[in-house]
């Protein structure tokens, strides 16, 4: 009788642990999927930043021969930022590149705007003064609105502070990577 009771208790504990573990794992997996869904939105928005950088460099490319070193350096930086955003870099690095892109495009646009060759060349003055800044601004706003960061931060906070989160971590659920600090 004693043996039967002990076996039953152990079995019950095993079942409870298994149920809690399975529940925690499945629940946190779903949470993680939701965060990844918002990441897809962020990725999409970052793609518009990359496109904007390509467009800006297409215009800049027509005038770099006549540009001073400062403008040329800004163009090189925009190109580097774009490459990081487009590549498979870590999210923190992409966040840094995204912030740098905002500054670098402003400098490049400002440098191009004053150039005589830009003034003389078809639509380029309009591109530099109006079209491209607007496009960069819109893409910047969209990226900021992509709520990946909030979702990721909340997920990490819950994962680290709850009992089921601790179990989920033991079972292999990893914290989400944060886009910016």
């Amino acid at each position: 009788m004693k043996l039967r009771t002990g076996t039953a208790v152990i079995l019950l504990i095993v079942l409870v642990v298994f149920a809690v573990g399975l529940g925690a794992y499945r629940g946190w997996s779903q949470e993680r999927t939701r965060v990844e869904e918002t990441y897809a939105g962020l990725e999409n928005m970052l793609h518009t930043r990359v496109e904007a950088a390509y467009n800006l460099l297409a215009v800049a490319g027509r005038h770099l021969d006549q540009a001073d070193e400062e403008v040329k350096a800004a163009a090189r930086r925009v190109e580097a930022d774009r490459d990081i955003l487009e590549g498979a870099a870590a999210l923190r690095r992409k966040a840094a590149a995204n912030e740098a892109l905002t500054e670098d495009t402003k400098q490049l646009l400002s440098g191009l705007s004053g150039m005589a060759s830009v003034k003389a060349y078809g639509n380029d003055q309009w591109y530099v003064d109006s079209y491209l800044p607007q496009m960069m601004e819109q893409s910047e706003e969209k990226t900021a609105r992509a709520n990946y960061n909030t979702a990721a931060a909340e997920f990490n906070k819950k994962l680290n502070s709850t009992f089921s989160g601790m179990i989920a971590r033991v079972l292999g659920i990893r914290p989400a990577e944060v886009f910016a600090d």
Partner: protein
Amino acid sequence: MRKIVSALAVLMLCLALLPQARAEDYPPFQGIAADVAGVLSEETIADLKTLSQRLEEETGGHVYVLTRHFLGGVSAQSYADKVFQVWDLGENDTLLLMVIGEESYALALGGLAKAALPKETRDSLMANHFRSAFQSREYDQAAGGAARALAQALAKAQGDGLNVSGLFGAEEAQQPQATPRPQSWNEMWEGMFAQQDYSEEPWDWDTEWEVEETHVNWRGILIWALVIYFLFFRKKRRRR
């Protein structure tokens, strides 16, 4: 149920991560001319529609024109090919993409149009009728010239002629009411014959009038001779 929801979520995530599958990158189908960049005049757009209508009557095909400012790093050719697919254009159709801010362009063609216009022919047409105007940022002239040349070549490849008179700044084919009023009887006869011979081609008065004049004079003389014959000689025969 949860499994299905999870599977759907993962599927949606995968689809969202595909960079080339973004539907918003391609403008919706807007008919013959999709002037997204806003560089074409209303007249050119109207002429493109008329040209395409005439081409459709002859060959069943169309020449579409799409303008954009930039493509965000995508090559013009792959973008044009993708738009051709997204718009579900036909085997006889041709799409001309003009990327204004990047100074690039591309043609996408359906299977039959491609067979009718091999690459060398297309390159030659674009070099002669498009490139120079495009580089000079004369977008109306570039789009009109390319569309007209492509449409004519497509019609010719199928053994048809294509009437392009009155389109893209070309002079209208001479209609009877548009002909200058003749100043003499002889000119009246000339005008009559000229209208018959040149009803489909724009009339260049400076160069072609003199050539036509030599032909028509003979006809005029013949007609005057007949008139004189009926007036005088027939009467004389009766008197005899």
